[in-house]
């Protein structure tokens, strides 16, 4: 998913953290002179090892923790200047394990903040029903209690509850850490989809750098002691980590992972080595390629084969070689394309449309060239930006 293509709409800074320090009475410094400009209508991720002050920072934004020094501005205004409950009701909050009210039904959980804001019961419930649909929850769950839902469903309720009063800001504290990887991926994709629709200013805390890179428009890497190590878009983080700590925290495969930010749309595809299941001897002989991709009558890929192993009129799908996992140009990134090429014994990646029909194939070599030119363009961009 080439998510770097999403642009935050409009400029403007909604939240500004200005040299904020949090020192506890025992002398521990949780956050140390942190300054961050959090762009509006985008996802800003605070990431770092435990004890780096990321959650403390998040909790200072809705005043669950008060800073010892420094100020936090929301749309230019100091957050200390409005009543704390008013401030909190204008910010959605999602936490690990969802923190649902176990004694209230799903619909009443979601309607909590609207009810506090004085909405009528009917209006609040209608709004809750609308949000259940938006976060992908079956309307039949409305009257259930939290214990009757799976962890993933509870977390969706948590997101719906946070969105209920349509707050401009959403604070998310490791919301997806406690669910299994498959469910987590689903929730992440859902969050990106919802964000595309709603354009909230989201501050997202996680210890998972992959999650940070997947979700963040901007990523703030923090290190133990509450220091900001680097604040950059994820692609820049991967290409030029500020120091050894950030590099180490990013882990291996930086180069490969960075490919997620390059679109595959401009790859030059060829359909020469693509033949149908009922190909004639001429069709098999014609392409000048070491491997041929056979497709079924609907145009979906079946597998690769060397031309000499193919007999016209008697191509057996079960004897073909695996084509790996095809990529969708325009949706998937260069990383997916390269992955597909590496997985296929032919060394070619299969491109399909959203219906799964083959639109062409592309060689490792072509992908390699695309990567080189993307890197070159990236360097130019950095020069311009710098």
């Amino acid at each position, binding site marked *: 998913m080439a998510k770097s293509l999403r642009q935050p709409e409009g400029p403007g800074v909604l939240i500004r953290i200005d040299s904020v320090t949090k020192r506890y009475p025992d002398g521990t410094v949780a956050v140390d002179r942190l300054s961050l400009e959090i762009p509006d209508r985008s996802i800003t991720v605070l990431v770092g090892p435990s004890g780096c002050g990321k959650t403390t920072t998040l909790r200072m934004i809705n005043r669950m923790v008060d800073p010892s020094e420094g100020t936090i501005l929301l749309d230019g205004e100091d957050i200390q200047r409005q009543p704390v409950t008013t401030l*909190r009701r204008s910010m959605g909050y999602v936490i690990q394990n*969802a923190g*649902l009210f176990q*004694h209230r039904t799903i619909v009443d959980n979601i309607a909590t*903040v609207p009810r506090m804001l004085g909405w009528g019961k009917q209006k609040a419930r209608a709004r809750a029903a609308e949000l259940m649909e938006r976060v992908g929850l079956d309307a039949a769950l409305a009257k259930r209690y939290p214990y009757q839902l799976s962890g993933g469903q509870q977390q969706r309720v948590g997101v719906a509850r946070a969105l209920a009063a349509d707050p401009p800001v959403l604070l998310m504290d490791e919301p997806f850490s406690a669910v299994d990887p498959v469910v987590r991926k689903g929730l992440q994709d859902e969050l990106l989809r919802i964000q595309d629709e709603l354009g909230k200013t989201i501050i997202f805390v996680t210890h998972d750098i992959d999650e940070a890179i997947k979700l963040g428009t901007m990523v703030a890497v923090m290190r133990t002691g509450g220091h900001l190590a680097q604040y950059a878009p994820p692609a820049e983080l991967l290409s030029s980590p500020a120091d050894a700590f950030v590099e180490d925290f990013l882990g291996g495969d930086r180069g490969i992972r960075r490919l997620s930010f390059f679109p595959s749309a401009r790859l030059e595809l060829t359909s020469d080595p693509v033949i149908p299941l009922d190909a004639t001897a001429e069709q098999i002989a014609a392409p000048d390629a070491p491997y041929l991709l056979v497709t079924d009558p609907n145009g979906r890929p079946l597998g690769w084969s060397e031309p000499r192993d193919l007999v016209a009129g008697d191509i057996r799908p079960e004897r073909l070689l695996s084509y790996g996992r095809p990529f969708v140009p325009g949706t998937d990134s260069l990383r997916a394309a390269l992955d597909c090429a590496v997985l296929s014994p032919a060394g070619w990646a299969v491109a399909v449309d959203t219906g799964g029909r083959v639109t062409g194939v592309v060689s490792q070599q072509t992908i390699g060239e695309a990567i080189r030119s993307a890197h070159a363009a990236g360097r130019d961009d950095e020069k311009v930006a710098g």
Partner: protein
Amino acid sequence: MSDYLHDFFDMPSDLQHSWIGLVGLHLREALLPVVAGLLLALPIAQLCVRFRWLYPPVLGITTVLYAVPSLAFFVVLINYTGQTELTVMIPLAVYSLVVLVPAIVDGVRSVPPETLSAATAMGFGPVRRYFQVQLPIAVPAIIAGLRVATVSSISLVSVGMLIGNQGALGNLLHDAQIYNRPELTWNSVITTALLAILVDALLVLVRVLLTPWMPSGTAGRKQAPALKDAAR
């Protein structure tokens, strides 16, 4: 047989009550102290939750009070409240605290921290949070405590017979002796036990009605800690 039944329910005139009247009196003397104990325990428990250091001394004091024999209480109280129901009910209310305070403290503390964080982050003030989140979630533990307190209160009322026949069904024990009517002893014991079982069942029903949000299988497990603490 019918003669025996007649004797069984024939209350000596010195009690000035029919059998039903004694049952009503017994329930009043047993339940009012528990209600009073609950009203007293709620704020005490909230203070213990709010100020953690307060909990051990409070627990110590309630335990010591529980250890004071009711007779000793009566001797002291009789100077102030005389030979009245109140003299019976005050010690019972005090005794109920030893069960109710820990039950409520445990119940309120059993609210998951993330639920509290979520409530605070959504803009619940402390009072709203207490009444709309902490207290409702503590209901199973509170009712578990109430069950123990009520049953013990029902059995303890009988002691009131020692101070001028204020023991309701307990008075039957005394009369059984002086009138040599053993069936009255049976009446007292059986009726008291039935009352305890009945009231306990009612409390279970109340719990079920108040907490449709509880997974049915875990009802017993959730109450276990409160009971254990009460016994401590």
